[in-house]
């Protein structure tokens, strides 16, 4: 039997497809991104090695507003963590507490998650339309016509107008993660807390939340990383505009590479985004390790 299970030829046969894809699509590209980021390269010929100049260019004497795009992605991050996650948590706690139509609500809240971002983006563009959009029509009908304007075209509102659909799209996902975690808690624990006289709020803060910390951690990591690399909705809704008011690192990266032909500099942005994601995952993990020790 050992002979069958350690058949070298079979191991190679079974591993080959996955390993090839991994090398071609993940490992090699990551290494190449690092390499490209040290080049001054317009995509033609072979580029010249310039060390860390591209990284310096991101922040020192920057001309394309990269720092602003990073700031915007951090605003996304803060809004996700302090608005989206609390709403998701609240919905998860309410639903898992047993309301009528629990399954119906859970399924409906999840619908936006499965929609394509292009669909959601185009849909919200119509919602925000200055003349015929749902939002302005609604505002006019309740007598707030003075508020009605082109939400995506205004520098002051573009960023928040791109954030709201993101919130709308992913709240259901985080709700589901937390809901699943609450549902896996042993019901006897809640019974015991009730018998001890704890009310709903107390149960939520003293029992439910502490017991779902691992899933809360996953949820936070997803929303933090999701915010740092956000691309789809911003690209569809504003492509970073107007006047870069809603610019995020990914949209700037794609433009720098595919429209500006600055392959090296664009790769430095890509590496910066990877580094941010790794760093923040690490930070969230550290915070949760500390929380769980208490």
């Amino acid at each position: 039997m050992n002979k069958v299970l350690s058949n070298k030829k079979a191991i190679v046969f079974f591993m080959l497809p996955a390993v090839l894809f991994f090398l071609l699509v993940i490992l090699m590209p990551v290494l190449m991104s690092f390499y490209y980021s040290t080049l001054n390269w317009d995509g033609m010929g072979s580029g010249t090695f310039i060390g860390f100049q591209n990284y310096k260019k991101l922040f020192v004497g920057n001309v394309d507003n990269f720092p602003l795009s990073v700031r915007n992605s951090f605003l996304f991050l803060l809004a996700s963590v302090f608005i989206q996650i609390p709403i998701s948590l609240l919905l998860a706690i309410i639903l898992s507490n047993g309301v009528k139509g629990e399954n119906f609500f859970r399924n409906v809240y999840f619908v936006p998650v499965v929609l394509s971002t292009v669909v959601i983006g185009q849909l919200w563009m119509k919602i925000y339309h200055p003349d015929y959009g749902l939002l302005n029509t609604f505002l006019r009908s309740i007598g707030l016509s003075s508020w009605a304007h082109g939400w995506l075209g205004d520098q002051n509102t573009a960023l928040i107008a791109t954030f709201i659909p993101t919130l709308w799209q992913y709240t259901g996902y985080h709700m589901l993660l937390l809901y699943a975690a609450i549902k896996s808690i042993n019901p006897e624990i809640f019974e015991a807390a009730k018998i001890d006289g704890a009310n709903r709020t107390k149960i939520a803060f003293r029992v439910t939340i502490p017991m779902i910390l691992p899933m809360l951690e996953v949820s936070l990591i997803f929303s933090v990383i999701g915010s740092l690399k956000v691309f789809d909705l911003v690209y569809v809704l504003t492509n970073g505009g107007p006047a870069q008011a809603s610019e995020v690192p990914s949209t700037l990266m794609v433009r720098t590479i595919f429209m500006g032909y600055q392959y090296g500099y664009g790769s430095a942005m890509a590496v910066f985004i990877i580094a941010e994601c790794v760093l923040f995952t690490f930070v969230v993990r550290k915070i949760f390790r500390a929380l769980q020790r208490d």
Partner: protein
Amino acid sequence: MKKKSIPAYFGKAILYICLIIWAILCLFPIYWLFTFSLKNNTEIFGGNIVGLPQVYRWSNYSNALLNGKVGIYLLNSIIVTAMTILFTVLASTMATFAMQRMRWKLSKVAMSILLVGMMIPIHAALLPVFVVMRNLKLINTIWSLIIPYTGFAIPMGIMIISGILDGIPRELDESACIDGCSIYRLFFSIILPLLRPAIATCAIFTFLQSWNELMMAVTFISKDEAKTLTVGIQSMAGQYLTEWGPIGAALMVATIPTLLLYFMLSSQVQKSLVAGAVKG
């Protein structure tokens, strides 16, 4: 039963109102999309933005499918997604089997290296994969999407499948071996059928990712004959800036498959996304 006080009833009412408002917020945009996909601009801009259409213009759909090339985009999306799912499922089940069941020195190391792939954002691969595909002359073909989508789906596939494979008793391998079963038959006719639930989860996860992917789709594909729905609709929206009906129909065409899949398999879809998170 304890008698409930009036404030308690009041609280409950508010709770349900909030739940219902959020539900409406989730569904109303889709209802609205559906209604304007059946209207023309005169009706939409003439003040009937929210109501049901006066005339159901199904011609918007035939226009979108035939003239707007949405038919081609739909077909491309289906091919890209189906191929990605097929390759992902095959590659991840085979590799997981080799790493978890077969005996070789580096099996654990290989597993942890492959799983690191889950942490890499697609941004990292965008330019390098573009350069490779350009050199292979695959840009503007669906292969420039199928290959990277598969690569990025494999680590998650391995994660999902290894969880289920762990629950299939190893005695099965042993008795099959004693009966003189070859390793290939053991995998393809015994293990693979048992992995069906894991494969379904992995397939749904991969479906949602590749059906909706945008960044690579818009940067690698600019020719109509290779466009998928996401990039096709994105470029169509630019041309039909003011025609809401056909673009609405195109958006519905892109949405209906996912919604159908979701309503048929909602618990499985939810399970697969939770599975992806628990392991991540």
